[in-house]
């Protein structure tokens, strides 16, 4: 029984924390500059090996595992780091690594080296990851519209689309986003840091990822993986919100004492802590299940997703409440965490979707 990260993984975490400190300030700088991400920070992340972590050594990566990705996700989430780590290194790279075939050999070295950024573009109008796409591929050319796409300044995207060879199912494809047939229209997202766009493809040349007609299966597995990594992002965000609220409660005075001396404040912080610690257990279980490819993965992913979403949303909402008026200003970092908590709650499938998956898994036992 070992329900902790290893010493090496904890050392990676410390490196990350040093690198990513001042995350919220960096976010504001990126927003002020109207930039897609913090390019200097991205360079440092690449140098630290974050983009190469789970890529095999043969493909230019470090050959580390899921646990390291979880540590990265938690620290990126804690710092709100304004770099496309989640979209590229955690989600898209993992699909390419597992199912990329020939595209993997081409793209993994570039992704590992940080020369290219990847993202995923699976949802369309309804916002559901599970819906059959309307986008189509004919003769290797993709047409259709994807929204919302995170980090749309990426070089390539994993896109879902139907083609004749997919029969009644659909497939996944690797699409270049800098091709002249692609139009990216920026949209304002609830999270103002991570950029989003509507991406329109008009006969864009694409390469297939995975087998014909198995898009739904691939997405299913990908969502389990994405749910766990997102849960770690949420866990990190929740911890940051709790600490921010705790520190403010110690410093802010009202009625002649620190507001943290009030039981209403103390008990709310204790409840935030309790939800976070419950979520942490589910996250660790998910990390283990993903790492060893356990049959318990569907249950573990759903549990992590639900627990971490609860923890982050609660922590972000109540951190503002504990800050009072100042927490409701745009200038307060509280606003960044609330908006991020909403983004992550709504991405990677709804509470209803994961509830359904979880109970199916529980009943199957």
């Amino acid at each position, binding site marked *: 029984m070992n329900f902790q990260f290893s010493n090496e993984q904890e050392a990676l975490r410390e490196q990350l924390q040093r690198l990513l400190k001042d995350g919220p300030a960096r976010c504001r700088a990126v927003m002020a500059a109207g930039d897609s991400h913090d390019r200097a920070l991205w360079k440092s992340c690449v140098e630290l090996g974050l983009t190469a972590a789970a890529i095999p050594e043969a493909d230019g990566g470090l050959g580390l595992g899921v646990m390291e990705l979880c540590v990265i996700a938690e620290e990126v989430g804690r710092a709100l780091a304004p770099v496309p780590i989640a979209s590229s290194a955690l989600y898209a790279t993992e699909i390419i690594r597992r199912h990329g075939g020939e595209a993997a050999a081409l793209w993994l070295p570039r992704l590992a080296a940080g020369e290219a950024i990847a993202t995923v573009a699976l949802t369309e109008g309804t916002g559901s990851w599970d819906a059959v796409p309307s986008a189509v591929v004919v003769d290797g050319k993709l047409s259709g519209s994807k929204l919302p796409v995170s980090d749309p300044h990426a070089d390539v995207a994993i896109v879902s689309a139907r083609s004749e060879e997919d029969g009644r199912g659909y497939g996944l494809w690797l699409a270049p986003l800098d091709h002249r047939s692609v139009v990216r229209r920026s949209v304002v997202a609830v999270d103002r840091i991570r950029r989003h766009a509507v991406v329109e493809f008009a006969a864009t040349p694409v390469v297939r990822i995975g087998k014909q007609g198995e898009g739904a299966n691939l997405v299913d597995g990908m969502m389990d993986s994405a749910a766990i990594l997102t849960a770690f992002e949420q866990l990190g965000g929740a911890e940051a919100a709790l600490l921010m609220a705790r520190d403010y409660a110690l410093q802010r005075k009202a009625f002649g004492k620190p507001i943290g001396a009030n039981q209403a404040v103390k008990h709310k912080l204790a409840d935030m802590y309790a939800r976070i610690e419950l979520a942490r257990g589910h996250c660790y279980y998910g990390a283990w299940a993903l790492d060893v490819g356990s049959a318990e993965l569907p249950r573990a992913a759903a549990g992590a997703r639900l627990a971490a979403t609860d923890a982050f949303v609660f922590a972000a909402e109540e951190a503002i409440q504990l800050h009072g*008026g100042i927490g409701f200003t745009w200038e307060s970092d509280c606003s960044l965490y609330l908006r991020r908590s909403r983004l992550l709650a*709504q991405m990677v499938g709804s509470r209803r979707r994961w509830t359904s998956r979880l109970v199916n898994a529980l009943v199957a036992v």
Partner: protein
Amino acid sequence: MDFNDSPEEARYRTKVAAWLAAHAPRFEAGPDIKPNSAAWVRLSKAWQKVKAEAGYAGITWPRELGGQGGSMLDGVIFQQEEQRYRVPNVLFQVGMGMCLPTVIAYASREQTQRFVGPALRGEEVWCQLFSEPAAGSDLAGIRTRAVRDGDEWIVNGQKVWTSYAQYSDFAIVLTRTEPSVPKHAGLTMFWLDMRSPGVEVRPIRTLAGDEDFNEVFLSDVRIPDSQRLGAVNAGWKVALTTLMHERLAIGKPPEHAGIEQIIALAKSIRTESGGMLLDAADVRDSIARYYVNDAGLDFLRMRAQTALSKGLPPGPEASIGKLVMAKTRQDLAAFALDLLESGAIIEDDDRSVLSTLQQTYFWAPGLRIAGGTDEILRNIVAERVLGLPADYRPDKDVPFNQQ
């Protein structure tokens, strides 16, 4: 029990409704008029003027002050009928609801006469300069200093969360005049011309993204002693009068996502199996829970209205209204946004259901704080309604400048 108006109430409502039907539509804010914009201020002023001319401004104020001498219930009936239209009627809420009653209670007869008319006719806007960065829930902790200089006071400090400061002609301002006594005992209230030298207004951007509130910086602002409201160092008592008037406002809150929006949304979304989301038992369960709170708040308002109709002030049940409302809205909007999955992460700028939900969600944290946080309201209910002991307050008898 009876949900219908009494005969007199019904008569007044009929009269009001007919007048509104004839005049209100011309003053409705179209989609091009953003709240808080200059155009919106012009429209607000025009609408107030029309109301004043027709005898629907200051309905509950005494006739000798230019009001209509109507009952509190007349005021509520007008408000209810007015809410059927998208007319802009919040610009004067702070002035008519809080500032002018304070002026009337404490200023000289001449000053009162000077201000009441323009306020009623929408010619002058008022704001309230109470909150400060270090004085939120603990309002008596304000630091804005007023130092006597002959017949004047010199005021320095910073106020926050001031609605409409950028459009205001006048303000009431709470200041600290004596720092060497416990904090409630050293405050004094004034009225202030917002065009006085040294007054600077800067907008505050909220996390919802808008700029409805302001900071107001006061730098060597000179206020004549004749503008003092109440005795020197008796400002806390004056402020309590102002705030008591705030609590009497029992209108329906501005438009936010409610049960109707959630039902409409749940009708419009299909489940995996092709049915309406509205038929899913979990969605129905949430709808029922929000309905219990939401309709429960309507019933609280009806009880307050019953009290007014009998000439009594609303009972203590009014204190739980905002407490329940703010959190219910936050949870309801979050629930609805979750149903929309990643389709709801794009911010919609028009008046769609999605935009209403997003506005509701991102405004809810402010609503849970403004005018008394959830925690302060629970304390008020516990202490004033249930008779429980006050919190321990180590600052109570300590001079402000020794805290």
